[in-house]
């Protein structure tokens, strides 16, 4: 009897279990049903970003995170740089006429460019010269009502001394505006094409002034870009919606979402589970891990950067070019690229990266040679070596993923020629402050270009002006070098400019105020059904031409893209 009962009991529970299982399976299948192509997911682009933007106006920042999140999605510039050719092309301005003396630039704007319509602003007119004048006057004129809104610091424009360069902005008519310069400067257009030189709405600013909400201009943005601001939750996500009246084309997505995920491995996990379409700032080790995964595309994107070892030339023994030259021989670029960059970089023989148009391949003698270094050091009067500091920057940047490790490699090689090196580091804020005060012997740091102009590598890093204002980490001032780079600026003919920059590079090679080490490679990593994402070599990512395909893009198109 007992057995009988438990048998029945068993039967019954089995039935119950089967029911539970069936329900579970139903829910599960409901969850896994194939997504049809008209749904929202197919019309959404998900980007996993590495951090929160500071605000929604690139004029006020230099942080790459903010530029990525804001510049190309919300705004347009007057002119832009073609990421493939590196040349300046038209954006909001349909043509640019440059006067004979290269002192006047006249921009003819496109007609009918619409601003975003959002809950907080409805535009009544399309883009005109007022908007352009407003956007730049805010930056240049310290007495402009919006100049001090948001702090009054415009780091990029201050860095290239734009306010001093532009003498006057003249509104010629509704769609024509002229910039008058104090100096004929060849890099002017390239600077106008950077991600920082965006166009705001003057009408929106007026409305905010009336409401007394001036601060909102940088937090609730209005622009002309392909997507418009919808919602932002600090440290969680940004949601952009399609700008239906975008002037250039109909945007490909209903919405673009920035999923803010600071943790590297979480970002990679989200890419694998399709929670993200595009991975922001993949690390070198992540790229290696993802290389063998199905459904992930990895494309090498060119990035204009250089990492270098700068000597403080105002301090002995580094005021002696011979010592600097001797030390340059102990830089083992192959070992560094292997250990620090995991082979995702090229050895640098010049300051300019190979993808810059002014680059010229010259076979300089860059061998790693302890004997040469030793001999030269003896010749310079230091047969027994000396003590020195190597400052290693504490943060990870595109151009240098691990300065500490790089410093250790240098330290070891230096010990072979009798130089006793001590590695120094501080937190990033203190580090930059002490660096600007020139407290270092030598420093491992780098540079990521803001625009395609070669000047961006020379003037900020090594000119006499920069030696006093601080961004010249070598505190180096060479009149011959300065005259070369200034001459290069005064002409617009690319071949002639290139020649001047090459002469400047030669001086650099002889004088060695700094040793270029590597040009790092940046990666674009996305799901294989995404195409058309543009990673600008000078900064921000752009989704304007991005597409999401129902099926995988076939191998051939992918290969083609890879070659670009």
């Amino acid at each position, binding site marked *: 009897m007992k057995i009988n*009962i*438990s048998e029945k009991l*068993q039967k019954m529970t089995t039935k119950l279990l089967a029911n*539970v299982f069936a329900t579970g399976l139903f829910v599960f299948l409901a*969850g896994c049903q194939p997504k049809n192509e008209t749904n929202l997911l197919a019309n959404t682009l998900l980007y996993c970003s590495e951090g929160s933007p500071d605000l929604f106006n690139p004029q006020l920042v230099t942080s790459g995170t903010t530029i990525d999140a804001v510049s190309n999605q919300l705004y347009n510039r007057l002119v832009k740089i073609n990421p493939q050719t590196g040349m300046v092309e038209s954006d909001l301005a349909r043509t640019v006429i440059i006067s004979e003396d290269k002192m006047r630039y006249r921009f003819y704007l496109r007609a009918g460019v619409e601003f975003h319509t959002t809950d907080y602003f409805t535009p009544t007119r399309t883009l005109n010269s007022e908007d352009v004048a407003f956007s730049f006057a805010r930056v240049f004129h310290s007495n402009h009502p919006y100049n001090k809104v948001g702090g009054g610091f415009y780091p990029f424009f201050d860095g290239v001394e734009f306010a001093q360069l532009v003498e006057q902005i003249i509104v010629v008519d509704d769609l024509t505006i002229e910039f008058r310069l104090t100096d004929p400067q060849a890099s002017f257009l390239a600077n106008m094409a950077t991600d920082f030189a965006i166009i705001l709405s003057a009408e929106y600013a007026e409305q905010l002034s009336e409401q007394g909400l001036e601060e909102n201009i940088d937090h609730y943005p209005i622009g002309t870009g392909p997507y418009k601001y919808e919602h932002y939750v600090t440290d969680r996500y940004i949601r952009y919606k399609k700008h239906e009246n975008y002037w250039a084309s109909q945007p490909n997505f209903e919405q673009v979402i920035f999923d803010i995920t600071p943790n590297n491995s*979480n970002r990679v996990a*989200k890419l*694998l589970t399709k929670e993200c379409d595009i991975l922001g700032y993949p690390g070198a080790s992540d790229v290696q891990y993802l290389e063998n995964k199905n459904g992930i595309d990895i494309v090498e994107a060119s990035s204009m950067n250089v990492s270098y070892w700068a000597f403080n030339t105002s301090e002995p023994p580094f005021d002696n070019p011979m010592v600097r030259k001797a030390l340059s021989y102990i830089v083992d670029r192959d070992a560094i690229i292997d250990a620090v960059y995991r082979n995702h970089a090229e050895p640098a023989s010049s300051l300019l990266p190979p993808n810059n148009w002014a680059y010229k391949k010259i076979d300089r003698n860059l061998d790693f040679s302890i004997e040469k270094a030793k001999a030269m050091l003896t010749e310079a009067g230091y047969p027994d070596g000396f003590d020195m500091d190597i400052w290693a920057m504490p943060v990870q940047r595109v151009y240098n993923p691990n300065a500490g490790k790089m410093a250790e490699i240098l330290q070891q090689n230096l010990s072979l020629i009798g130089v006793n090196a001590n590695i120094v580091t501080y937190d990033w804020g203190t580090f930059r402050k002490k660096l600007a005060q020139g407290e270092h012997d030598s420093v491992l740091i780098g540079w990521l270009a803001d625009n395609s102009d070669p000047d961006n590598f020379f003037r900020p890093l090594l000119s006499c002006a920069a030696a006093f204002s601080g961004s010249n980490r070598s505190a180096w001032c060479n009149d011959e070098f300065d005259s070369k780079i200034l001459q290069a600026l005064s002409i617009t003919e690319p071949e002639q400019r290139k020649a001047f920059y090459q002469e400047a590079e030669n001086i650099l090679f002889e004088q060695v105020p700094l040793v270029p080490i590597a040009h790092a490679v940046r990666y674009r990593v996305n799901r294989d059904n995404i195409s058309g994402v543009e990673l600008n070599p000078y900064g921000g990512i752009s989704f304007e031409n991005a597409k999401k395909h129902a099926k995988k893009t076939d191998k051939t198109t992918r290969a083609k893209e890879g070659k670009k």
Partner: protein
Amino acid sequence: MFNYLYRKTSLLLFISFGITAFAFSLYYLFPGDLLTNMTGITNITEENYQFLADKYKINESIITQYLAFLERLYQGDWGVSINTGDSIYQLIFNLLPATIELALYALIYSFIVAIPFGVLSASESHPWLDKGILSLSLIGFSMPIFWLALIITFIFSISLGWFPTSGRLSLVYDIPPETGFILIDILISDVPYKAEAFSDALEHLAIPTFVLAAYPTTVLIRSTRQSMKSVMQKSYIKAARAKGLSTWQVLKRHGLRNGLLPVIQTLGIHFGTLITLAMVTEVIFAWPGLGALLVDAIHQRDFTTIQGGLLVISALVFLATILFDVLYMIFDPLARIRGHGKI
């Protein structure tokens, strides 16, 4: 019955006093300025200071301060977060539904799975089945939840790509929060992508629910098994069988009802652990609930948030325990005359 409820109510009063008194004492126990700890405002200006000092009665006796604290609690004026300046009351009650939702689904899941398994393993005909279920449940019981979570995520999310790794709902879907319960919110919303969002929410629920359910499931299996074993030996079961009732009838009318009573009680006892585990689960899966908020607040030394969070969580655990107890009483009249003031 009324006597019993009266006893429970007085217990409620005492424990409420205990919890609020502890929360109040945190003002003094946390480091930093007393008024900042109370209000959450970090830079208090001179003129503001006087106003706030009066409002919070900090210059009066401790008893008056405590009473003022109770009054503010009742009015929903819980101060602001030291870090973000958001209203703590708003913050907590916006996130609480997410925590309750997770714990509730895990509980339902564990009921559905554990009771049949418990009954099955109580059957004496197949000792191997009993042993198998018991050892499985022992493994589930002793496995640390964060480890289980990582293993499951690695297999089902990263390797197979079936489920998302974190969050409650894909950012793709923008559902206006009405009740705070994501499934309900989706159902009552009027968005065109309702079905899509609902299935996405289920996908997001799958792994966290499973992971969180592991512990209560194993506990329930063991307690169901034990009580079914003893109930099925009782003479009234034999009498029922002798009447000629079928197995199902015996189970339904006599077995389950009596066998599951102690299970309700076990659940009440383990509810506190369940909430603790829910907090761990929230952190692992970036589930935007109260637990994740509290852990963040602890990292950032956001004392006002910690205090509010502790208050709500302890009140929640305590209320749930009493609720389970009352439920038990309703189902089991015998218990009403057993023991006094038990929780």
